[in-house]
Each structure stands twice: as structure tokens, then as C-alpha cells.
């Protein structure tokens, strides 16, 4: 059957057809849908793990037990999982082990533009890169075969345009889920120095064997065309190039680590001018240059952002279509949704002029005007350690002006360690956990605090208050952020305290909250157009020539604005 499938959906289908037994992940754009789609297959045990390191460790355990396992994450997630990654390269696998990592060139939804291919090189793990949904499915199956044949984990790298584009996929029958026998083998699986030294030799031999065999690997393809231009490329960039240079010769790499050296030498010898087209870092280009081959790459292109077909045409052919002029217009940045509980917290942070160390999630949007409630954002869980460090550098009194802001899922992911650090090292920071009871930014995934698994089953819900208390924090309170006055008083009290404290601001994500009522209206008789309500940065409240207006199609009746308005000008509610 042929179906139009998202790249991520095709990865899931590939896992199903490959007879995967266990699938794990922590959500992260653009990788999230992979595991959501896998969860729909009843046969496959699927979980959201608390973070990517744990997700990989669960997958390693499943592989050791003899089942095929797949773990998915975004590029920065692989940093979190890097510790087990480097050593599972030494132990190898029992059941096939595939790590899917989705890079985000252009940073559509990420904090950096790192290139995951470096991980494959430094951890000595083979890496495949599909260019569309059909290949995404096929390469996952290929990755499992390679994993078991060469006794290695295999990384499959996607980029946003492959993960989030739909193209046609021909599906096949799944192979049954089978378990290999587990045989105790400390020399292979216990990585102490004595054993690891022996395994490092095995790793090197494996990569040499893969390099040699990659000459015949059918996912590395030469497409003969005009011999004047030869292009070495992989992933979606192959399609950009085919769009504007259909006549050129191509070496399309399906395996991007290790590189098929002999195939590349052969291809290079048959073309007049050789190009490498790769987004982000010159990973392939530098390896080819190190073999003494002349090749053009990054002198024509940037290491920043995505490539486009027009860009390739301009660089190689020197021309492209006539460009129309772009218009100068007001930007349309993403915003916190109407009714978002985070808005209320940031309104108070700004009012109290607090410095806030932020974290990764929807609440990062609180950094933008008019709320401007976040001072810094680095990575998952960083807010707590950063608030602590800020205090230690500036002295105790600074903690009265500084807070750490983190979400429920992010706190569980990697925030808890920072809190233990604060208590252990006598910090006095105030940490705000914005608990909207869901992993929201990536599209509403469950997490250990929601009481539901990825399959929708009821499970134990992590008690955040008990967890915080167990670290040794004595001052924990739970507040509804939509009670602005109570929130403000609590903030003032906790930042003054000479002890560490945690405020859990608890209110469900506005997109999931069913309790909200009908839209409000502005009473133009009462409204003085003072603009105070605009400080909330609610997209539903707009200033028009006739005065303030609430856009009915956007307002979800959260009533936060009624607490800010001094003239009771919002209609449709009881005061």
C-alpha cells in the first residue's frame, strides 16, 4: 500500500516493520511524532522516559535482553544521552539498537544548530541519513540489520525537513517480534578498563570493516549524469540539488559515517568539478579534503541555517529565478496562547522587577515583549543551577532579586539535580515550577507527573511537592498563578527568605483546560484605554482606533485581564 506519510511517521512504520520490541524517547521538536506514532502499535512497548539519557539506557537494556530497540530524540537530547552513547559503542548490542536523532538546521524550534554527525564520528558509531519518508522507513530497517550484523548501535539522523515533510511511502508486512537469547558475557558488557581496552580494539576493527563494506552498500548510490559537475550529498539537500541541477552526476550517501572512501575516490575521478552539499558543518568535505581530493563546499555556502534549491543554483550555476522584492512588515513572533497560565507568573515577575533564569518550554516565550519575564535560557534544567550560581557570585542578597523558572516536565528531566545542589551547598534561591501538568511545547505529551503513560494507561503520578521536600527544601507551596494577588505576595515572601524555597504555580495548559468559559467583551463606556491590560501580552486583547477590543475568536474567557483592569471594563463575568 502507498500512503502519504510524515517522515517521523515513516520512521515509526520502519520500526514496526523491523519487529521492534521496545521504543523510548523524551519529546523534542522535530523528533516527537516518531514515538507518538510508534505508541499506536499495540505490539511495541513504548514509553516517554524522563530524559534522553534514561531513554537510551532503557533501549540498551532492551537490546541486551535480545529485543530490537529504538530510541528517538532531538539533537540537543543526544547531548543528554551522550554518556551511555559513547560506551554502548564499545559493548555493542544483542538485539538491534537504533538511535534516531533529529537535527534542526535553521533552528525552527531549538536553542542551537549543532551537528549530530560529530557524535557518530567521535563515538565510532555508524550513521545513516534518509532524504524522504520512504527512505526514512527503509533506512530504519537497514539500520537494524547493520546493527545486528556489525554488533553496533546505529544512529539514524533526520533533519527538520525530513522529519516534518510528508511524502509517499510503500508499506510492507511487519516481521515478527523475536527475542535473541541473552548470554552472560562480562568481557563484552561490563566496561571496566581491562574489558574496555579489548573492546576498543573491536570498535576500531568494526569501523574498518564497515568502511570497506560500505563500497557495496546499496544505500550509497552513484547516479551518472553529466561528468562536468559531480555532487556528493545526503539527506534532503539531495532533493534541493536535483530540483535545480537534474543533469549533474550524484553520489548520494545513505551512510554518512563511516564514509565509503573507495566509492568517493572513484566518483571524484570521473567528474571535472566536485562539490559537497551538506547543511551545517563541513563534516564530509573535511574528510574528503584530508584524502587530498579537491572539492568545493563551505567556501560557497554558510554553516548557518538551511540550504535551498535557489541557493545551490546560484552557487553552482551562477543564476536563479528573478527574485521578487520582500516587503518590510511588522514581525509575527510566536506568543503565549490566550488563557496560558504562564502569562500570570511573568506579569508578576516583571512587576516585581525580578531577574529570572529561564528554561526550555513554552515559558521561554515569556522572554518576548511585553512580558519580558526571562533573562536567560540555555538548556533543559539549567535554570536552577544558574539561579544558584548567580547567587553564589553576587552574594546572598542577590537571591532576593533572582528566581529560577522551570516547567514540570523539564524539572523532572534534569532540574531536580540542581535543587539538590542548592540544598547541599547552602543556597537560598527561590525556584518557580510552572506546573501545567503536561509537556506542552512539543504538543502535549504525558510525563511522570501527569499520571498517564504514552499509551494512555493510568499510572502513579509523581508528587512534585513530596519530591521537592525530599531534597531538603522546607518551604514549598502550591499557588494558582491566576490568583495574581496571592501569587505576588507569595513571591515577595519567598524571595525575602534566607532559605531556599520552591513555589509550584499549578494550573493546566490553556489548550487542555476544559473549564474555561465564553469570551469576554470590553465595555467601551467603562474602558479608558489606559492600556494596562496590554501589559499581559494576551493576543486576544488589541488596541484599535475605537479603543480596546477583545477578539472573540481568540479569547477563551480565562478572566486574567479582569484582575488587571482598574475600571471593571471587561464584560461577561461576575465581579
Amino acid at each position, binding site marked *: 500500500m*502507498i*500512503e*502519504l506519510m510524515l517522515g517521523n511517521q515513516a520512521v515509526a512504520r520502519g520500526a514496526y516493520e523491523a519487529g521492534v520490541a521496545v521504543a523510548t524517547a523524551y519529546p523534542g*521538536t*522535530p523528533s*516527537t*511524532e516518531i514515538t507518538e506514532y510508534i505508541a499506536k502499535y499495540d505490539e511495541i512497548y513504548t514509553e516517554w522516559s524522563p530524559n534522553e539519557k534514561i531513554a537510551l539506557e532503557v533501549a540498551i537494556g532492551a537490546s541486551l535482553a535480545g529485543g530490537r530497540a529504538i530510541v528517538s530524540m532531538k539533537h540537543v537530547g543526544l547531548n543528554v544521552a551522550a554518556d551511555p552513547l559513547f560506551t554502548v559503542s564499545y559493548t555493542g548490542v544483542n538485539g538491534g539498537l537504533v538511535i534516531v536523532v533529529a537535527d534542526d538546521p535553521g533552528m*525552527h*524550534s531549538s536553542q542551537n544548530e549543532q551537528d549530530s554527525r560529530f557524535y557518530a564520528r567521535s563515538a565510532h558509531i555508524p550513521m545513516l541519513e534518509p532524504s*524522504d519518508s520512504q527512505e526514512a522507513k527503509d533506512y530504519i530497517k537497514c539500520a537494524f540489520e547493520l546493527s545486528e550484523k556489525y554488533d553496533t548501535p546505529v544512529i539514524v539522523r533526520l533533519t*527538520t*525537513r525530513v522529519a*516534518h*515533510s*510528508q*511524502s*509517499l511511502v510503500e508499506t510492507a508486512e511487519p516481521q515478527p517480534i523475536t527475542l535473541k537469547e541473552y548470554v552472560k558475557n562480562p568481557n563484552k558488557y561490563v566496561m571496566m578498563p581491562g574489558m574496555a581496552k579489548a573492546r576498543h580494539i573491536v570498535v576500531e576493527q568494526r569501523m574498518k570493516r564497515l568502511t570497506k563494506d560500505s563500497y557495496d552498500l546499496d544505500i550509497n548510490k552513484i547516479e551518472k549524469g553529466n561528468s562536468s559537475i559531480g555532487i556528493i550529498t545526503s539527506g*534532503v539537500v539531495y*532533493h*534541493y540539488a*536535483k*530540483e535545480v541541477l537534474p543533469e549533474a552526476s550524484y553520489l548520494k550517501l545513505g551512510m554518512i559515517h563511516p564514509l565509503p572512501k573507495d566509492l568517493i575516490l572513484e566518483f571524484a575521478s570521473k567528474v571535472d568539478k566536485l562539490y559537497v552539499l551538506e547543511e551545517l558543518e563541513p563534516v564530509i568535505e573535511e574528510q574528503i579534503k584530508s584524502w587530498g581530493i579537491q572539492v568545493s563546499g563551505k567556501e560557497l555556502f554558510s554553516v548557518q541555517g538551511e540550504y*535551498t*534549491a*535557489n541557493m545551490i543554483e546560484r552557487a553552482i550555476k551562477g543564476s*536563479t*529565478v*528573478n*527574485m*521578487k*522584492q*520582500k*516587503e518590510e*512588515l*511588522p*514581525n*509575527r*513572533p*510566536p*506568543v*503565549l*496562547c490566550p488563557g496560558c497560565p504562564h502569562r500570570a507568573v511573568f506579569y508578576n515577575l516583571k512587576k516585581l522587577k525580578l531577574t529570572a533564569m529561564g528554561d526550555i518550554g*513554552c515559558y521561554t*516565550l515569556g522572554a*518576548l*515583549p*511585553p512580558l519580558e519575564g526571562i533573562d536567560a535560557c540555555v538548556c533543559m534544567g539549567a535554570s536552577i543551577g544558574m539561579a544558584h550560581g548567580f547567587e553564589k557570585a553576587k552574594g546572598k542578597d542577590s537571591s532576593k532579586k533572582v528566581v529560577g523558572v522551570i516547567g514540570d516536565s523539564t524539572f523532572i528531566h534534569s532540574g531536580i539535580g540542581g535543587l539538590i545542589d542548592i540544598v547541599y551547598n547552602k543556597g537560598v534561591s527561590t525556584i518557580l515550577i510552572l506546573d501545567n501538568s503536561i509537556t506542552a*511545547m*512539543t*504538543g502535549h505529551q504525558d510525563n511522570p507527573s501527569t499520571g498517564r503513560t504514552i499509551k494512555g494507561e493510568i499510572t502513579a503520578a509523581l508528587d512534585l511537592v513530596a519530591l521537592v521536600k525530599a531534597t531538603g527544601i522546607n518551604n514549598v507551596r502550591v499557588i494558582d498563578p491566576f490568583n495574581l494577588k496571592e501569587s505576588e505576595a507569595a513571591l515577595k515572601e519567598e524571595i525575602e527568605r534566607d532559605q531556599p524555597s520552591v513555589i509550584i504555580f499549578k494550573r493546566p495548559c490553556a489548550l487542555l483546560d476544559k473549564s474555561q468559559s465564553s469570551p469576554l467583551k470590553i465595555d467601551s463606556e467603562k474602558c479608558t484605554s489606559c*492600556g494596562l491590560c*496590554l501589559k499581559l*501580552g494576551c*493576543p486576544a*486583547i*488589541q*488596541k484599535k482606533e475605537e479603543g480596546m477590543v477583545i*477578539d472573540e*475568536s481568540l479569547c477563551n474567557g480565562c478572566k486574567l485581564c479582569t484582575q488587571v483592569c482598574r475600571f471593571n471594563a471587561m464584560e461577561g463575568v461576575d465581579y
Partner: protein
Amino acid sequence: MKNINILIVGVGGQGTLLTSRVLGSLASKLGYDAKVSEVHGMAQRGGSVVTHVRFGDRIFSPLIEEGRADILLSFEKMEALRWIHYLKEDGMLIVNDQAIDPMPVITGNAKYPDDILNRLINRISNVFIINAQEIAKEIGNIRVSNSVLMGVLAQHMNIKKEDWEEVLSSIVPPKTIKENLKAFKIGYNTKLGCEEGARLNDVLE
């Protein structure tokens, strides 16, 4: 068949993804090669959103390049202007006459341009303007405005009305099929003025 490139733009939350799903299903149902590219995550939260739909005999890139879109379908009028440079020389613009203020306008740091429709008409010869949400309101469901826009789009493509209706019915929530089909029909039957009068299906075939 020559490849067709349709760029769908709007504001996160307006339902542009439903339209691209309908187009993608329609193209694969008719046996074309098809690619649809969308952006998820942070870009969706009330920000400017864009979806690329391409179909034909053989599609390589999932993305439409600047200057190469046959049709620009815009759910919001300022977004039409923002993405206008993606249209090819004789490309067609279908625009919903709706204004949604972005945050810099709400906070008073920028002004929503008041001459957008004129600027669009001055730059593009094939412009069709419709107030889809007004029609949707009359039908009684504000969410069906994207079906009105699909109806207008369908006027200009060589795909049978029945195929559109079948695919639309299979994708929208079952309870809203009737309202969506009504919205589609109104869009399909509304005769809109176009400065040059050229029909895109003449250009495409």
C-alpha cells in the same frame, strides 16, 4: 503533468494544516507524486506559519523556492504580503480578507499596514480576495472558513469538485462534514473579480 506548487500561509492556530492535509490526500488519491512540508513546535504558537504543497509526476524537494509558487493561499492578509516573493511571475494569490494583529502591533511597537489589499493588487495581477470568516459565521461555524478558501482554490485547479468533496469529508471531524461541504460549495461558486481575468488552470495545463 507539470508540477504544481501551492504555498499556504497564515497565523498559527488558523487551520492551515488541515488544508495541506486535504491537498496532500487529494494529490495522492489522484495518483500524483506529492510532498507536503510543514513546521511544528515553537513556530505554531500564534506565529507566522507556512506549509508547502507540491504535486506532479515527480517531486524532489519538499519545499517551494522563492519565486516559484504557482499559487499563494493566504489565511491572513498581512501574511500574504510577507510571503509574496515566493510567487512566480504569473502566479496567483488567493487571500482571506482578515487581519490578525501580531504582538508588536498589540503592544504599540508597530502599526498594522492599512493599505495591504492595494499593495497586493498593485504587485500581483492574479488576485482573488474573499472574506471567508464572514461566510463561515453565516454558516454558523467560524472554523469552516478554511473550507471556503479551499472552495475558491478548487475553482482554479483542474481537479473534479467531487474529488475535493470526498477528500474533505474524509478529513474534517465527522460532526462538521455538512458545514464544511456547505462552506466549500460557497467558496467554489463565488465569482471573484480578478484584475487580469486569467484562470490559473489555463496556465497550468
